[in-house]
């Protein structure tokens, strides 16, 4: 039931009693909760580095829940979103789910379902956050490589032999071996297989080029 103490649930709802009620429910279940009366307020103070999720009301004055979702998707570290709505119309829910929402709940929502949805969202957020941390470390390591080392790395990940890499780069095979050891050390991997996995993470994250 309980989640990591660091996780924050962001409740965005213009309806005061609904927002208060949901916030209270989450707090007594041990969550750290922050409340926002509109999508605008949330955008003004977006959370950083924290684990957490967003409980978002679909229809609010000003930017709607879906618009906030779209805006948040632009940010590098996005939190998983659980939608809460007074009217479950199919078009909106499809849009929300396609855009990556964790769940689409209709008011009045069963507290159990709400807690489950929050937990799921936080778990997914944790995974994403962890992935993000690994990717960031890889990026940092990658950034320390010299130009030659990156060229060697590319050859290794492409499955080329040292001899082939030396031929392509026009350098000695021994020099390639040296660069290769340097890369393994800098990227903090023990095997070529690990190196390839790390690189694929980097490429998925889009920070490799």
């Amino acid at each position, binding site marked *: 039931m309980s989640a990591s103490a660091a996780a924050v649930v962001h409740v965005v709802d213009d309806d005061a009693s609904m927002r208060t*009620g949901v916030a209270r*429910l989450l707090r*007594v279940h041990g969550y750290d909760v922050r409340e926002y009366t509109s999508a605008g307020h949330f955008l003004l103070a977006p959370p950083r580095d924290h684990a957490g999720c967003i409980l978002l009301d679909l229809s609010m004055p000003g930017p709607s829940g879906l618009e906030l979702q779209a805006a948040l998707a632009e940010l590098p570290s996005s939190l998983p979103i659980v939608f809460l709505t*007074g009217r479950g119309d199919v078009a909106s829910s499809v849009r929300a789910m396609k855009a990556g929402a964790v769940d689409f709940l*209709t*008011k*009045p929502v069963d507290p159990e379902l709400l807690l489950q949805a929050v937990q799921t969202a936080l778990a997914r957020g944790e995974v994403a956050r962890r992935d993000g941390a690994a990717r960031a470390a890889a990026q940092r390591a990658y950034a320390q490589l010299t130009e030659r080392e990156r060229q060697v790395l590319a050859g290794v990940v492409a499955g080329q032999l040292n001899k082939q890499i030396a031929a392509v780069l026009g350098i000695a095979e021994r020099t390639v071996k040296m660069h290769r050891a340097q890369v393994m050390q800098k990227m903090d991997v023990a095997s070529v297989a690990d190196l390839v996995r790390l690189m694929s993470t980097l490429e998925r994250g889009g920070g490799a080029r």
Partner: protein
Amino acid sequence: MKRGSRGRHAGVAWALCAALAVSPALAQTTPGVPAHAVAPAPAPAPAPVPWHVLVLNASDPTLPAFIQLDTAMRGALTAPGRHPVEIFTETLDMFRFPREQVEAQLRALLAAKYAREHIDVVVAVAGPALEFALAHRAELWPAARIVFHSVVPGELERVRREPRVTGIPVRYDYTGAVDLARRLDPATRRVVVIGGTSDYDRTMIDEARRQLATPPPGVAIEYWTAADVNQLVADAARLGRHDAILYTTVFRDTTGRTFIPREVLRRVATASPAPVFSVMDTYLGAGMTAGSVDGFADRGRRTADAIQMLMSSPPGTEVPVYGAAPARCIADASNLLAHRLPQDALPDDCAVAFEPPSLWREYRWYVIAALTAVIGQALLIVALVLQRRARRRAEVDARHRRAELAHASRLALAGELTASIAHEMNQPLGAMLANAGAAEKLLEAREVDRNELVAIVDDIRRDSLRARDIIVRVRGLVTAGEVAREEVDLVALVADTVRLIGGEARRRQAVLAWTSGVPTLVAHVDRIQVQQVIVILCMNALDAMAEVPVSRRRVTIDVQRAARGGVDIVVADQGPGIAPDALPHIFDSFFSTKRQGMGLGLSIARSIVDAHGGKLDATNGEAGGARFTLHLPPAAAAPDAWTAAGPR
């Protein structure tokens, strides 16, 4: 001068005579008409020789009774198609002049008069005339048949032995007259028989004595004949109201003066408090109250009939003497009234004369006209009342129908609002569920946070009230029950209405705002129906802005005191406005510019406003968008309440 004038007149007369004498000749010799062209006239049948009828009256033929009788007889004899008759009249006047005194001379006179005249029928009037005719027929009128009338049965003995005689005897019904008197006044104890001293008078009295020889029990009969007329009148004046007079005839009194019986009766009746009864119908109108009479006119017609019978029978045929006509009852209504005798005590077949003139008889056409007018008016009134009732019923029906229509429209509005209402309800319900879940979790803890629990319960209560308010608002909208005028704060009503449809506005991403220059504005209206109008206007405004960019979707409601008194509620939107060609029709039923509109909303809105004596106008705002102004009159000016109730 005088002589000349007479001569000229004589000359004119002669000229006229000459012209008359010559004219047939002139006609026959008219030039240019050939004599042979005139069809020979058929030989006229020889005119029947008229029957010569001699009326021989023993009395005075100018007596009212005989005039009546004679007129009826002549009328019957000379009716069209009857054999022509020529009537001679002779008067014996033996009632006043004794027979022995005049008979010889009368016979000689008549012999001289009728020596060359053929008489077919002698009508002998009254006993003495019959005696005279029988005695002298052979000498005076040897070929004549004799028809008598007005002869009492006692005088008929000789007739039975004579040939060629018939006639109508008269039977004066004294018994019947006395019966009538007692019938009209059962208290009658004395009947006074008044008569005269002439032969005929005596005959009448004798007949009365004979008929009344045994008077009805308890009734005394007195005969007053030995008095002069003045004494008679004076005596009659002393009679009591319960006495009765039976009047016969008075041709002559003890002084020897002769009278017309009818005139004597008039004096007696005028003087006496006792009612007069008699046996002759000519006394009607002369003071007789009632009588059992043998009518003279009837007798005259029967005499004519007897003459016809006699003359049409072959010679030698005898026609038996007729029976006396049955007496009939006649009465004088005005005399009955004067003597306070009950008219309904008369026999049913009694002919009542001189009924007091009734309105009907006197003013028949006025009465008919008045009655027609009254009946016509009554019918008109009934028709108007019925029409009014029918119209009222129709009005009530129409009102019911309008109320039902308004209710149906509200249900439709509620249907449109369902989604937003559900959303509105879901907010407090969701909050309550969340709070309940939180409370549950708190209660699991070893140490219960009381303050937090109190806050939760407070929130749950607040949300319940909020949910209740939503339901109350919606229920007001969909109610079909009684609608009634009351003092309503229109500012509060607008605020409430905005709350009701605020959710719908949010759903459509529109702003719904209201303003008012005053804190309260009270009007005497039907709360639900006025709210319905505002909802209709707002929903129309939201519909109108469906294609407008979200940022411009704004509906404003402004409540103001109207300059002309009353309240103005203005609903304005930022939509495209109303097309100029649609503007005159937007309040018509089934007129809609919306693809799914029924076209009833504005029509119902206007009928509601009209029923409130208000006004609903549509214009286009200066800055674009439609602008509806709902004007409601001041409380006192509100007309006839729209009180209809829907089904209960």
